[in-house]
């Protein structure tokens, strides 16, 4: 056998080169809002004065452009507003994205963080469970991936073996290898290229809007959104879906320990850079959160202020606030106007 010691190293070098190209290409096929959220976090611009962080409820309820205009009107100064969202139930990837934003763009003066907890009893066993690896490693740095890996829970049946033995756990070398292979796929842009998919264009307004149902400069104080009211059949369906598996958030419930811990860490990320942090809860169709629940949230998170978005809608709406929803989880433009206006008015006090 002829000795050609160089051959394996040449192939390895090609793969490493592809991995490097992939790490810069950022062309992995991701869903639109995740990709654009990362684009927003890495935008070459200083941090916004106000940053809203949360999931799709934040996306639906908060219009950053409207709030900028309203803040300018209320304070007489120009203040910038960003909205950073991930439509995922788990906080670890949200923390990774937030860290990315803070590292790349600095700290906002005020952060309004959605309380990211689960309200569906059937989904509670999945809270904190492994997320799809490609979702988390497509853009993440290795140290970010380590956070997700270390802080993701795998089993809810009680720990009888070390977590590094559990299904779903990846050792750090495996995470690094997974990152490398993902970058190689990214460089090849496969299967996006073969399947004729186009890479998401996050330039322009899409960076900020991220989802066609989310708000970005398309609500106004003078508009009438009456046509967006759901039909009686839709509302009956929303009510049924909303109430079917609803799980109240009680921060003292041991089942909430993981979520509480993650939220404390998310808040701490902002506080370490001097941001003032508010926690908020967005409303859900047919669900009235009690004063006791709100008080419990404030007791659990004394390090953050609390802005009550639910009350804003309670004041504005009729029975069920029926005119303010587009489905059981998300407000429509009328609801977004109420909440964005309420938020702007409340935050204006911090800048006067």
């Amino acid at each position, binding site marked *: 056998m002829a000795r050609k010691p160089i051959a*394996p190293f040449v192939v*390895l070098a090609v793969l490493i080169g592809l991995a490097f190209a992939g790490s810069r290409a950022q062309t992995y096929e991701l869903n639109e809002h995740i990709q654009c959220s990362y684009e927003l976090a890495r935008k070459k611009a200083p941090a916004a004065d106000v940053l809203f962080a949360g999931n799709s409820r934040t996306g639906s309820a908060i219009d950053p452009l409207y709030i900028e205009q309203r803040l300018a009107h209320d304070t007489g100064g120009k203040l910038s507003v960003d909205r950073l969202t991930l439509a995922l139930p788990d906080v670890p990837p949200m923390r990774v994205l937030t860290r990315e934003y803070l590292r790349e763009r600095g700290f906002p003066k005020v952060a309004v963080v959605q309380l990211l907890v689960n309200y569906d009893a059937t989904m509670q066993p999945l809270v904190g469970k492994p997320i799809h690896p490609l979702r988390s490693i497509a853009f993440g740095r290795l140290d970010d991936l380590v956070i997700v890996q270390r802080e993701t829970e*795998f089993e809810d*049946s009680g720990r009888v*073996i070390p977590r590094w*033995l*559990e299904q779903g*756990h990846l*050792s750090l070398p495996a995470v690094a290898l997974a990152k490398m292979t993902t970058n190689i796929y990214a460089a090849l842009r*496969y299967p996006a290229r073969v399947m004729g998919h186009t890479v998401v264009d996050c330039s322009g307004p899409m960076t900020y809007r991220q989802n066609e149902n989310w708000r970005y400069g398309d609500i106004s104080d003078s508009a009438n959104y009456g046509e967006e009211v759901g039909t009686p059949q839709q509302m009956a369906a929303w009510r049924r879906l909303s109430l079917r598996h609803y799980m109240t958030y009680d921060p003292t419930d041991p089942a909430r320990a993981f979520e509480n811990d993650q939220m404390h860490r998310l808040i701490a990320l902002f506080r370490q850079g001097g941001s003032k942090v508010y926690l908020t809860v967005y409303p859900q169709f047919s669900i009235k959160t009690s004063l006791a629940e709100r008080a419990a949230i404030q007791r659990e998170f004394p390090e953050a202020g609390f802005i009550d978005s639910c009350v804003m809608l309670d004041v504005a709406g009729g029975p069920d606030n029926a005119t303010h929803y587009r489905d059981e989880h998300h407000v429509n433009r009328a609801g977004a106007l109420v909440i964005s206006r309420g938020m702007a008015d409340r935050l204006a006090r911090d800048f006067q």
Partner: protein
Amino acid sequence: MTDPLAQFIAILGGWGMFRLLGRASAAPVLTLGGVLFMLTYAPVAALWIAFTAIEATAMFLAFRGLERDTAWRKYGVYLLLPNFLFVDLHPLGFGVNVETLAISFSTIRIFMTAKQLLSARKTRPVRDARWIFVAGFFLPALVVGPVFSGTDLQKQSEAEEPDGVTLRDYRMVLQGLVLAILVNPALGLVIDLVKLPKVAGLPDAGAAPLYFLSLFAAFWGQSLVAEHTSRFFGFRLPVNFDAPWKAANIREFWSRWHRSMAEFVTQYIFLPLNLRGLSPRLATVTAFVFMGLWHNLSVGYAVWGISHGLLLAFWPKRDFTGATGLAAGIGTWAAVIGLSYIANYGALA
């Protein structure tokens, strides 16, 4: 399942070591590489494979001194085979799910090695037990690939001059990678994108041929990578797939599809049962029920094993031609694809 590309990168690392250290390092590099790879991805599986290899070694040491005709020496190592059930039964012991990668294939390779060591006419020296570990942790075929005996690797390792690497080997590795990491996910996307007719009670049954193609692409691709990257280290593994699409009946299918496993059940399950008086048909069904449960301890795979066994046992021995031959071919493939769907994707899976 690990990403085939990640495993290929690990193999490349081993190949580099082998090139630097020379021919004598092939088996140690691939075994150590396999151990490290398994510890990285599935430490429990690494421990279980090591346990099975130690068990096999203990059996080899205990039985090698017995007469060749004694039942313990001939059949004692069969006690190893239930170890593959760890893949399905481990939650009963651990209470939680753990990664169980590669155990099914490694158990078979460890068994084959121990069985062949004990079957040799001349009692094999104790040091040959190391080939049990080589077979158990053989990096190129660790996760998926052909099953084989460590004694075959030993013979090749001791040959004066192994076969050289040819251009075809590089081409086959590339083909395998394309199948496993490009074609397989593309078929997965096609399944997601294509709107297929719904069949009541059978979710995604319309996609059964695509599922089968996807499975074939992944398995054939990974087998090609295993077979031809082994050649980089001077080892030749059995060919797992021999143009299975040419199969015109179920007998031919099993001589072309996952050939190494089909040969394993023939040699180690069918023949001993048949030689001990079980009818060929019943021995065939038993062998395929074993193969089904080796895949997965599920009702779906039990149905798969019984059905394949019955088809093989009762398939007419004569060849069909013309329209009958065409009908036999179509029937064979309908059965193969349908049973694959039942075992892997249906309600019984």
